[in-house]
């Protein structure tokens, strides 16, 4: 890799964040609100991309890490009066801890078994929310009190504050993904994805590296979940359901696995596909499905993955 491509890639990612910053001043209210939501969800997708895209761990249970952050921040706000900064930090820690615990068990399996084990853990987490329904209020969920939705004295219900908190989280996740993709750690992740047995026989403790990937991913997903709850004020069990384990997979596949900005591209596209198509018809998922098929036909490696393959091999 030459130094030139390094600078080109860094400049591209910085300007992507810059464009999102500028959009704050341009976008109409409706899209402004959407974009804040998309940036948080894209952070979740980037978390998924660390384990799935870069390391090749196909988890079907990432909703549990997102929900770990969401519920930690929400419940701490509700019952302990914890503010947003503490909520996000604890949410991140919860996602990290759950990922390490689940990883220690689930990473003893590979392939299809890993998919099933992660799915089962996520279902157990989902059911735990109902078990403690007295506090979590099950699928009805609860609203985080607005008093706790403050960061450094600024109300997160305020659209501008919300947008910039979402952008900050997003930029941090881009920085982490970029750092991982370019680091020697990221090279080992990619090696495990490409050929696990070979990587082991080069002297790498594959289990520990996979656990590291899952822990980074879980921490990012936990932070995204906490931010989602605090920014939009609602905590509900839907976010722990299988749907929210499948979404990040779809977003990452659409945008391009193992590309830094792919998860954002995928989240953005999917969000607006649903948004626009539902304005025309109640059968909007049909349109989304057809669009997905088209995408797989013409961009089999996702939007950025295909771009990297055809025009920009320097893209991390």
């Amino acid at each position, binding site marked *: 890799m030459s130094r030139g491509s390094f600078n080109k890639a860094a400049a591209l990612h910085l300007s992507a964040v810059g464009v999102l910053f500028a959009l704050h001043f341009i976008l109409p209210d409706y899209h402004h609100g959407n974009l804040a939501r998309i940036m948080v969800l894209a952070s979740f997708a980037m978390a998924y991309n660390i384990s799935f895209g870069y390391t090749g761990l196909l988890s079907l249970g990432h909703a549990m890490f997102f929900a770990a952050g969401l519920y930690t921040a929400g419940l701490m706000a509700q019952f302990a009066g914890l503010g947003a900064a503490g909520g996000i930090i604890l949410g991140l820690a919860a996602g990290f801890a759950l990922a390490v615990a689940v990883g220690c068990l689930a990473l003893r399996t590979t392939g299809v078994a890993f998919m099933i084990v992660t799915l089962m853990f996520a279902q157990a987490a989902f059911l735990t929310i109902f078990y403690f329904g007295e506090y979590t209020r099950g699928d009805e969920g609860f609203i985080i009190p607005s008093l706790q939705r403050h960061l450094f004295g600024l109300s997160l219900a305020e659209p501008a504050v919300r947008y910039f908190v979402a952008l900050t989280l997003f930029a941090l996740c881009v920085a982490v993904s970029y750092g991982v993709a370019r*680091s*020697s*750690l990221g*090279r*080992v992740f*990619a*090696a495990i994805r*490409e*050929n696990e*047995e*070979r*990587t*082991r*026989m*080069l*002297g*790498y*403790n*594959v289990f520990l590296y996979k656990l590291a990937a899952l822990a980074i991913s879980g921490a990012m997903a936990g932070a995204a979940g906490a931010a989602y709850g605090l920014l939009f004020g609602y905590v509900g069990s839907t976010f722990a359901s299988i749907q929210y384990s499948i979404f990040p997979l779809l977003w990452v596949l659409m945008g391009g696995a193992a590309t830094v900005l792919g998860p954002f591209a995928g989240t953005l596209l999917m969000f607006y596909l649903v948004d626009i198509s539902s304005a025309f018809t109640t059968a909007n998922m049909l349109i989304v499905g057809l669009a997905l098929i088209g995408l797989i036909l013409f961009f089999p490696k996702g939007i950025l993955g295909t771009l990297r393959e055809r025009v920009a091999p320097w893209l991390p």
Partner: protein
Amino acid sequence: MAAVTLLSTENLSKSFGGLRAVDGVNFAFPAGEIRALIGPNGAGKTTFVNLLSGRLPPSAGRVFFNGEDVTRLPAYARVNRGIAYTFQITSIFAAMTVLDNVGLSAQRRLSKGSFGPDPDTLEHAALSALERVGLSKRRNDIAGNLSYGHQRLLEVAMGLGLEPKLLILDEPTQGLADEEIAAFVSLVRDIAREASVLLIEHNMDVVMELAETITVLDRGCILAQGTPEEIRRDEAVKRAYLGT
């Protein structure tokens, strides 16, 4: 002067169900040698080296490397102690460049702390391994696009990137053309100046040319051991190979 024993096994056995693929093998291998391991198909050669490299756990017995009992160590830890294994079926990172493939093998050794090696040091180490096998001109090619012979050489370069004490080559010349084999023989001689080489090989010309000692396995046991000349004359070996 007695040579230092680099690798030895004690009553090493591996059973798959009722089949004793490796049956109580006592094997000693002095440092600095090129040793060939031969035997008819199904003799247990690959199983035996998998027990040495740690890819399979033994059913019984022990493995010693460099004076240490490594029987319980997982494969990656044995690699870190200096046992490198190159795969019988070419196993490379097909989507990565040739340089990145070898870089990955050198990276762990050169890493200090958690931030990995300095990029220039790493590239230098990877390039020197590639130069030894003659692939440095192909450094930026995607590994999966290399010819079969070059992929085999890349495998060896990845082994060299580890700077092993013992390099296990599992049927390295399989599928190579004659002139590639000749180049390979001189490459192994070159490697043997720094590392011990354990060679599993079917090509008898290669074995006779390279090996200082030959160990013959048959049905999981050591049938014979000796210099190429002794093995060539051994009646038991002839019977095992010809099935008479």
